[in-house]
């Protein structure tokens, strides 16, 4: 599929760009992840608006999460989430065994320290999508073995 590569390249360049501008002293270093996350947030908001245009109204939170795992994930990452788990109290764990934005990185531990910056945008994407559907959340990601990745979504109760 032709549209896969440009997104990956663009995503890599965005990260490069943000870290380059930070190096030249325009922003302090800790804010880079936040900037990436905020970018993702805005994109997620727009994207979910478009994707949910023709779907029926969601029944509940779980219904929304399923939509994120299936349709939303397929649209952005060309595959579905491999495993969705929940404690039914507002915590959801989305596991992707071959996360696309990490799949081009070496599978060993060599680039482990760089993983967070490749996940920040996606965290924002999920958080933005959920927020536009009226679900406030905190999304964090963790990697234990390289192309696999776990996103933890904590729903903030109003």
């Amino acid at each position: 599929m032709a549209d896969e590569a440009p997104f990956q390249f663009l995503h890599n360049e965005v990260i490069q760009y943000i870290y380059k501008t930070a190096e030249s002293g325009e922003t302090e270093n800790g804010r880079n992840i936040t900037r990436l996350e905020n970018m993702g947030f805005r994109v997620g908001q727009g994207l979910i608006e478009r994707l949910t245009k023709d779907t029926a109204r969601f029944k509940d939170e779980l219904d929304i999460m399923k939509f994120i795992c299936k349709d939303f994930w397929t649209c952005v990452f060309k595959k579905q989430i491999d495993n969705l788990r929940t404690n039914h109290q507002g915590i959801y764990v989305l596991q992707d065994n071959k996360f696309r934005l990490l799949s081009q990185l070496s599978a060993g531990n060599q680039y482990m320290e760089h993983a967070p910056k490749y996940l920040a945008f996606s965290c924002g994407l999920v958080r933005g999508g959920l927020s536009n559907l009226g679900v406030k959340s905190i999304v964090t990601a963790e990697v234990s073995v390289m192309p696999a990745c776990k996103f933890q979504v904590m729903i903030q109760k109003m």
Partner: protein
Amino acid sequence: MAVCIAVIAKENYPLYIRSVPTQNELKFHYTVHTSLDVVEEKISAVGKALGDQRELYLGLLYPTEDFKVYGYVTNSKVKFVIVVDSSNTSLRDNEIRSMFRKLHNSFTDVMCNPFHNPGDTIQSKAFDGIVSGMMVQTG
């Protein structure tokens, strides 16, 4: 054709409202504002077994002496309200439906515009054009 078209944010403040200039604008604001209660009622019925309505189009919200008020709620809880003249009996449900659909498509384009800030009022010429096409032509 519509006499008033409004877009209301999920926090229930107006994002866009336009009515035919010849008539009392305040009255339309009031009508739209009143309709929000009905919208709320219809959405909260979703998920309960009786009258489970999962379509985005809510249908006729309520008729008044002079107007009929139709509603539509997107998945992001943004509300569209269209007010039509009661005397206009030729307007079918399907036409209203397609008006909402057009409105929704155009709204999505606005939301995906990187220069638009979500939550701000809508200032888009394309959206204006779509709305103008659906309003009653006066004069």
